């Protein structure tokens, strides 16, 4: 059925020893997947947990090439282009009609969005 990468694809090169590279990749396990699923408010069945763990572990494994690079002296790029100081004047700009917005809401009461009870205070 499905194979791996298309024929002819080369695996990414592993850096040579002595380049200062480290390979600290922890292997991604079932508990890790369960943990991030909970953080992301996703419920997984046991079968899904197994499947996703296997799939995600393979992706993380493939990312070893990045994790192994010694890039400590290289600054991170958060934005591809060097723009700074984009600002807007403190002037009101028309907003949305409340009725139109609430019409899209799953549940509404008294002009506000209604949700089931909240357990726990905000951090």
């Amino acid at each position, binding site marked *: 059925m499905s194979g791996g990468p298309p024929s002819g694809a*080369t695996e990414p090169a592993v850096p040579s020893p002595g380049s200062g590279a480290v390979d600290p990749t922890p292997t991604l396990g079932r508990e890790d997947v369960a943990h991030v699923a909970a953080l992301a408010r996703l*419920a997984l069945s046991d079968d899904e947990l197994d499947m996703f763990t296997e799939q995600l572990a393979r992706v993380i494994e493939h990312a070893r090439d990045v994790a192994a690079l010694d890039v400590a002296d290289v600054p991170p790029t958060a934005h591809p282009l060097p723009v700074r100081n984009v600002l807007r004047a403190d002037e009101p700009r028309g907003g949305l009609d409340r009725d139109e*917005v609430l019409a899209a809401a799953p549940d509404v009461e008294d002009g506000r969005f209604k949700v089931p009870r909240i357990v726990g205070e905000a951090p």
Partner: protein
Amino acid sequence: MNPGALAVAASVRSGERRARAVVEETLEAIAARDPGLHAFLHVAGDQALEAAAAVDRAVEEGRDPGPLAGVPVALKDNICTRGVPTTCASRILEGWLPPYDATVVTRLRDAGAVVVGKTNLDEFAMGSSTENSSRGPTRHPMDPTRVPGGSSGGSAAAVGAGLVPLALGSDTGGSVRQPAALCGTVGMKPTYGLVSRYGLVAFASSLDQIGPIARSVGDAAALFEVIAGHDPLDSTSLDAPAPSVSQVLDAGVEGMRVGLVAELVDGTAPDVARRVRAAAGALAGAGAVVDDVTVPEMRFGLSAYYLIAPAEASSNLARYDGVRYGLRVDAPDVAAMNTATRTAGFGPEVKRRIMLGTYALSAGYYDAYYGKAQRVRTLMIRAFDRAYERFDVLLGATAPTTAFRLGERTDDPLAMYMSDVCTIPSNLSGHPAISVPFGAGDDGLPVGVQVLAPARGEEQLFRAAAVLERAAGEVRS
């Protein structure tokens, strides 16, 4: 033979054709052909006819109806259209009606273009085949057993099948260029920041760009010029007007330095590689100076991308929590409701990427994964910069293969991710790139070749693309 967008606009502006007739024809073609194609998730027939009528009125009254007057356009369903469903092909946004238009939509309307419908995509733009849509896949216009590519598969198929002359997609890791290549159309990703993202449902904010899909380089240029330019509603929008690329389409490539990138040829299927080399030859024949170049850092692109994009996506998709809009699955407390809603509302690929992204950002792993990937990104940009000291544009394949079969890669996410290996580097660097149809593979399916340019290098990009388009036409005949 379907007239291109510019031809339609010219005939409507001159009064020779009525926009209403154009749109009616389009709607009929969609009704006839789309059931087998499934490019469209929603056809906005009434709104389209109203818009067309407004164009016709403008022409009658002697007012300028806009450069794309009467031209039917399809929009990927992750672009917000007021009052028209925008679902991102996800259950979690089923039936959602945005209360506002994306900036690109406003600009299209102001240019007289007529939005006829919203097209299919991989859910939340995550995918390379449109098979991750919650509404079923779109089929390749030439072979219904194959994928159109993704994630903008619906837009590429709609243009490739001749249903509309213009479409917009979004490109985060290749999602405009790759399906355009597979479907035999032109697809372009602008310099990051040249087209407003306001109203584009975010997938990976530092990588996303809206791009045009068309059947000709000229049409793609015209559409690009309409949507590009500074937008005060988007902080990452470049403070620059749209480059006038239409005017340079005939400038040729005499003396242009072209680098054929080994990493964008090696590892592709042999028939694809042959087409790319032929394209290099065509550019040389037109007066360009073509040479080989290697950019080894591109090899890390896939891994860096599959850490950065899911990380940003995991945060961008947190808002789908059942509170304010979209799907809600009830539960006794709000956290349980969030979980039930998101579990029911997201498909497996979206869940995979959310979890991957959450992991890459989580405490203890940030430096090893997301942090590192952002540094690798810098390495790639520097590598590109070095290449552009020697070359004006770079050349390579758009996708490693021609259109693959439905179901062929769905069991192996990593194999699917490999479809983006040629396109991802430009998203990481923020540079523009365009895919131009250049012949066919051994299976007769379209092959696209990719031109890359430095930031704000759209002029040389389109110049090279125009030459390739002419050469491709000659090769075919």
